[in-house]
């Protein structure tokens, strides 16, 4: 039983990374109808710069901030330079999707060219571990979970309590009406890309601290984040977060009790089954499509 509890708890902590990425994907999708496939690479780029600065003597906590801001700004630049020029035609949705795939390739290649292919060590924010109910947990993981939770809570607060957050939700619901009441759609998109990519920066930072700094840092986490988005629907922020946590636990339970080798396959099989049995997603929210 304790074992199982340990597996679940550790799953929740891994899930916090997936939830963050999933939340970033949904925030960006809601604002500009773009599924950003480059979100992981954008975060990774931020963390590589932060890692270089940390190696030069920057405190690790300041490095986290650098990663967030850099990833966020790259997001803003992506939206301004690559997504907005596409305009609002029929095929924009797909073109935007493919452009972010191209951007992902570019960023991935740029990281290889600038930092080489060998993985680099990356310092955790805090070291050591603690034993709770007989479960050994690294402080770094706990802190990562707490920061993720704090990020999610402040995003929830931002979108439900602040005027600009509410304006952003309004824009996602009905861009035309939002423009009519004087909401600047451009600013809303920029901010959404900043927040979305910024939290991807947090996710990438802790992934690096957990393993090492390498260009493919976020690929398997991004896959799980997408799985979480599948469960919660592309437009629900709460759904994405819960979906991310569910995938974290599911993945860990499957990896420990079914097969350590076929983790991706099991997660994938579950998604396909969910899509067949409950097309509206596990969380049952309606799937609003804007296609």
């Amino acid at each position: 039983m304790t074992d199982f509890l340990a597996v679940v708890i550790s799953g929740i902590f891994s899930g916090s990374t997936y939830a963050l990425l999933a939340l970033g994907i949904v925030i960006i999708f809601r604002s500009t109808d773009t599924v950003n496939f480059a979100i992981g690479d954008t975060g990774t780029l931020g963390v590589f710069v932060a890692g270089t600065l940390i190696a030069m003597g920057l405190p690790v906590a300041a490095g986290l901030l650098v990663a967030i801001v850099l990833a966020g700004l790259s997001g803003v630049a992506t939206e301004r330079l690559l997504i907005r020029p596409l305009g609002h035609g029929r095929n924009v949705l797909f073109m935007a999707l493919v452009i972010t795939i191209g951007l992902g390739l570019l960023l991935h290649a740029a990281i290889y060219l600038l930092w080489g292919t060998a993985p680099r060590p990356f310092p955790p924010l805090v070291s050591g571990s603690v034993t709770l109910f007989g479960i050994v947990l690294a402080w770094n993981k706990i802190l990562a979970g707490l920061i993720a939770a704090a990020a999610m809570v402040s995003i929830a607060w931002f979108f439900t309590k602040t005027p600009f957050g509410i304006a952003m939700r309004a824009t996602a619901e009905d861009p035309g009406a939002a423009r009519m009441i004087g909401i600047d759609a451009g600013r809303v998109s920029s901010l959404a890309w900043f927040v979305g990519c910024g939290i991807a920066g947090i996710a990438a930072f802790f992934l690096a601290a957990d393993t090492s700094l390498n260009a493919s840092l976020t690929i398997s986490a991004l896959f799980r984040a997408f799985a979480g988005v599948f469960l919660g629907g592309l437009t629900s922020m709460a759904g994405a977060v819960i979906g991310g946590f569910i995938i974290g636990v599911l993945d860990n339970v499957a990896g420990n009790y079914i097969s350590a080798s076929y983790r991706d396959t099991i997660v994938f099989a579950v998604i396909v089954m969910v899509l067949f049995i409950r097309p509206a997603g596990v969380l049952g929210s309606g799937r609003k499509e804007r296609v």
Partner: protein
Amino acid sequence: MSTMQFRILVTIVGTVLALVAGPLNLMGDYSLFVLASASFFFIAVLSVNMLAGLCGIWSLGHTAYIAIGAYMAANLTKHGVPIEVIVLAAAAAAGIIGFILGLSAGRFSVLYFGLLTMALALVSSEVIMYWTAVTNGEDGMKVGRAISIFTQGPIGAKSPTSVCVILATLVYLLGETVSSSRFGRRWLAVKGQRTASMAIGLIPHVENAKAFGLSAAIASISGVAMAFSVSFIDPIAFSLEASITLVVGTVVGGIGSSLGALVGSAFITAVPELARDALAIANFIYGGAMIAVLLLLGKGVVPALRDKLTILRNKSRPAMQVQRHAVDANAMMELVKQLLPPATETLTLSRVSLQFSGLKALDDVSFELPPGKAVGLIGPNGAGKTSLLNVLSGFYTPVSTTEVKLGKVDVLAASPSGRAAIGMGRTFQHAELFPELNIREMLVMVAGLARPLRQKHQIEANEPGLVADLILDGLELKPYANSLPTELPFGIQKVADIGRALASGASIVSMDEPFSGLDEHERSELRAILQGMRNAGVSILIIDHAVQEVLSLADKVVVLDFGRLLAYGDAEEIRNDPAVMKAYFGSAHHLEAVDHV
């Protein structure tokens, strides 16, 4: 050059290349390798390209299907299975898996395909890594010489390249055939107008799944070609990155174009050869090329060049001036009689109620549409008119006490796509024609779907091409037969939309604001068309803001206000109903004053 001539040319070039590479033995090892790579990349890019072009679905997981082909080739050859059988078996296996996955993702937006297929690529890498009995894991796998039915034994050492070229040529012809077949057109219809495609009886997710299955089958053939020509399977060929490379080839060459797939596959064959020592540089070029093409050209090298050529050619030709005769009611009646069975059943709506979380959009609305009659549905904005239409089309589900019957048939039990089969059709406020089909292609495709319905009712004119030509003639649309909807004035688009409803064999037609957006000439023509349809026995439900038009056409009029039935009677009663006037004006004016609201 016509499409047919071009296909023949490609076939000849393919055959010559296959001869040069194989029996004639005129090529060196390196050129054989490059030719083989270009061929199997072409097959793979074409499979991704078709899917993007015909369905708008981007797959990031097609290497999974290529892997199926490659590993089946390696394993089956060991047991002496000939390559011809392997190609078919791999295509069948990949096709079935693709179809099932397509069914699961296809019910949502096509965006979900992107996510699902990315997952598929990662999963296939994992399976390849651990299912060592079949794949030999990370180390990769040697592939024996292909065995052919024709040679009754292993083929020659230089023949695999020939085989690749032959397969690529066959796949090209298959792709071209499917794209211009009724299947390709149905997929374009679903891609362009999901809602309208359901109204003519297509089930979008099933069509998406079929296309996905076909595309997967084609991709697996690329895997067979790759396995035999390289004679070693390296699992890296099936990574997510390799999948993305296929998307690069599609985007750079041009979406939805076989020639584009050829250019794209040449691109992704050449770049790694030129940037041999640095994979990162190749990826850099890929990413940059993809973004540059999308931002600067919009849709890839080949379509962009084609557009340029078309513009140049059209400049030298004076713009087409079309003199179009308006359709008159009698001609319309004759046309409809040839094409449709007269309606025989009454459409009965009883106690229709619709709720949107708290808001009652429709509240206990009941009325009848007798066969061959026209019922008008009017009411101020927000009265529930369009909601009612959407209930009839199956896009909204009303509360459970609602009953809608056509004769004895329960309409609500039929899916949105199933309602075409019981003879119900609709037209749209904004015409909603399929953007990538010209008018004739659209009519032929829809008439093809309606063929069983026509045969059931023993209508002689049931051959799709014939039906389409009758409609083009009868609705005076012949000059526009080869035009895309966007090239046509709005009024013509709306006439074409009515043509689509006729082609679908519907004898009960719901029309959403047929008069909106039309000028006086177009209105009077539409009046004639509707009268002709009704005289031929079609039941019509018209929803419109043009109250005068509705009152003069309809046998009975239903007035809705705030989701409730305010009045129901013949035009004269409605004209003088004080409650109706109050709903429109807030006071008892005469309805004659209302028009063009």
